[in-house]
């Protein structure tokens, strides 16, 4: 309990520091959103529009950074993330809420699958050393070093086309409306296959390796020998004794990787035109849309922290040693 409380205090501090950083960093970027918008439209938007845009975005009023910072916090505490510039006047929260689920579903589920698959294979490779599973390692090492945007682009080139099963981009077919029905779900799944595969291929090996190494380390602990000496079945020793303990250090790694979901897979979303939050962030960066940038960063920060909190709790549940009652 004390442990959890400490963690929470730590999270609050980290959140504050990260949010503050998030506030200031975008403001260091030269230029302003109006210019960025004009530039984005390269001649499609005539330069007479500049004045009206400043008025529209509310950038015509002079405010000190400090005042903005205070305003930002008071807005934030009211749950208001401000209005996006790129999608003016859509509230940032609305943009995030439409794109976040996509990222969570695609990358989140993929990360989870990757973790479980990798951990499973790692358990095998670590437990049955010298068997075929060990031969997997060099291949996965190579695959994990492949930049996944590159892999994704090749996959699009090779696997998509007019008659291909795999769509080349997007989260679902145009014309469909997100809904939980038999038209939309399979379609969305189909669209997520390629990007998911790309992420899976390049991320699974990390888990295999770390799990394998932990298995190997744990396998030489005394209690494993005792378990064997007790005459337990191989399966029971491998799962309940070895894998159970080897998993512990990986839990915090998993939490961190959950946190990296949003930031780390930005490129997959770009390459596959996936309507997720990473892509929103990328757009916001280009357009100097700081409300949106801050919003996305906030989400990322919070998700990292929540993931860590979950990991802490999971750790607490998985490792009785951290549960110090007395």
């Amino acid at each position, binding site marked *: 309990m004390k442990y959890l409380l400490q963690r929470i205090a730590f999270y609050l501090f980290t959140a504050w520091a990260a949010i503050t950083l998030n506030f200031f960093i975008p403001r260091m970027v030269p230029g302003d959103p109006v210019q960025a918008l004009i*530039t984005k439209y390269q001649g499609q938007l005539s330069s007479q529009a500049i004045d*009206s845009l400043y008025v529209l975005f509310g950038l015509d009023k002079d405010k000190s950074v400090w005042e903005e910072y205070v305003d930002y916090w008071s807005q934030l505490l009211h749950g208001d993330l401000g209005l996006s510039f790129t*999608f*003016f*006047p859509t509230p940032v929260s609305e943009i995030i809420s439409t794109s976040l689920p996509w990222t969570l579903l695609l990358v989140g589920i993929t990360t989870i699958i990757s973790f479980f698959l990798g951990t499973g294979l790692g358990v095998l490779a670590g437990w049955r050393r010298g068997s075929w599973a060990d031969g997997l390692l060099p291949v996965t090492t190579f695959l994990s070093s492949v930049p996944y945007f590159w892999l994704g682009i090749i996959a699009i080139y090779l696997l998509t086309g*007019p008659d291909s099963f795999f769509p080349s*981009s997007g989260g679902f077919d145009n014309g469909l409306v*997100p*809904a939980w029905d038999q*038209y939309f779900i399979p379609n969305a799944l189909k669209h997520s296959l390629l990007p998911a595969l790309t992420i899976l291929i390049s991320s699974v090996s990390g888990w295999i390796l770390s799990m394998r190494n932990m298995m190997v380390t744990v396998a030489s602990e005394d209690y494993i020998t005792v378990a064997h000496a007790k005459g337990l079945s191989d399966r029971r020793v491998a799962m309940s004794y070895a894998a159970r303990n080897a998993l512990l250090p990986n839990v915090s790694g998993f939490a961190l990787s959950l946190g990296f979901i949003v930031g780390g897979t930005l490129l997959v979303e770009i390459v596959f035109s996936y309507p997720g939050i990473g892509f929103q962030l990328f757009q916001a960066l280009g357009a100097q849309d700081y409300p949106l940038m801050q919003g996305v960063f906030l989400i990322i920060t919070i998700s990292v922290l929540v993931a860590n909190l979950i990991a802490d709790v999971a750790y607490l549940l998985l490792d009785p040693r951290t549960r110090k009652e007395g």
Partner: protein
Amino acid sequence: ACGDSPNANKDASNSKGADFLSIGMPNGTVSENNNPFVGTSAGASLGYRWTIYEPLGMWNNVKPADPAKPWLASDIKWAADYKALDVTIRDNATWSDGQKLTAEDVAYTFNLIKSNEALNIFAIPFDQITVDGSKVKITFKTSQFTTWHKIISQIPIVPKHLWEKISDPATDPIKTPVGSGPYTLKTFSQQGIVLERRESGYWQDKPAIKELRYTSYTDNNAQTTALATGQSEWSFVFIPSYQQTFVAKDPEHFKVWAPGVLGIHGLYINTTQKPFDDPALRRAMNKVVNRADIFNQAEASYFHPELKSVTGLPEGAGDAFITEAYKGQTLAVDVDGAKKILTDAGYKLEGTTLKDKAGKPVTIKLSDPAPWSDYQTTLEIIKSNLAEIGIAATVEKPNQNVWDQNVQKGDFGAVMRWTNGGSTPFDIYQTVMDGDLLKPIGTAAQQGNFGRFKSPEATAALKAYANATSDADRTTALAAIQKVFVEQAPMLPVGSDNVGGAYSTKNWVGWPSDSDPYAPMQPTQSGALDVIMHLKPASS
């Protein structure tokens, strides 16, 4: 079980002869905003606002000098000094909620813009707006000769009875748009926006296409892929090697049409930096730029049509505006000519290095943001072109924000950039040479004249052109402008903008073409509505 699902009738969509048209733009994600006045709205970015809200008239960018085609206005009349406009509103137009469209609505729209700075994106100096039956009279504080097409064709008319109730028209996302156009919004999602044909009440014959499906692709690559696979049937996007990557995929149906318009791309030279303040040097540079190479290698042989005229005006759209003096004079690579100009002006070409009058080697920094690959390629070509007369150029790729700021503050050697465009060459020349826009180095010049070009004649002539009351005056002023442009070469014109598009005739035919350039072919232009009205099913 899911009969009430909005997707219920969608699963067979691709199999039977299509009754919809898929339109795509490489604009990244969009958010649900159909406000026709807001440039950041999905409606504006994808162009579907024009199928819901209509303008008074249709102006054809491809033939900018032609008068506007009446649309909501049955008659459009400008005063000779372009300070007053009389329009007659057609009486058979209705809003999609069934109400009648009247002159009151038109006057309301213009008043809305006039009183709302944030909505007045063209900065039009409205004066008086009066209604007289089906007629509306609008007066302006200055001549609108160079901006008339914006007023007529780029201001969507909105229903007064609904907009009156909106508290802040500039920020309202107008989730359920009601307009006078032939389509209404059916569904909106991140991946696509579907518009449905109005089955009754439209003032013309209803269009053949039942449904318009707009998709915003994340980037050019995604959009191109979608075009090549047939997922997208119409788009405006830069396709490298379009013959191979797009047309070749289905040569029978996949087409590209890219007519030039009165808006150009060129190399802005910072005329305050020595020795580039010397017109002779700039002229010499102008003579070595290989526009054909740029057109073919950087612009994929279509995207920015090659500029031929020395006046920097594109073929077709610009023809009507080339003054007598320069008719037939074309830009051509002439290295020897360039060298001659240089030696005459006192430069020395020593080996592969050009030395200026002070004996210093001439070097220049070319810069553009990295993601604009066509500009980047252009700069690479210009770099090697300039090397031929001994100018050592380096290409820099500052990020877009830095680049923007540098361009505005005059902190650059030379950049590839666009000009404003319009119905006359005024916008082009103004962006390049207008002394009124001139700002000292270090102060942001937001509207134009980034090269800090100082020419009182040009400034005066531009003013004269904009405010002239007769064609003769305009011709004289234009001649003066072009003379400065050609002789001083403040900017080296390279290619023109285009209002074309890539399209597929598999399902729909009737697209504009060189032989019948009835409208611009860009899905985001108001003229796109005209195109949609022209399309007919390919099968019948």
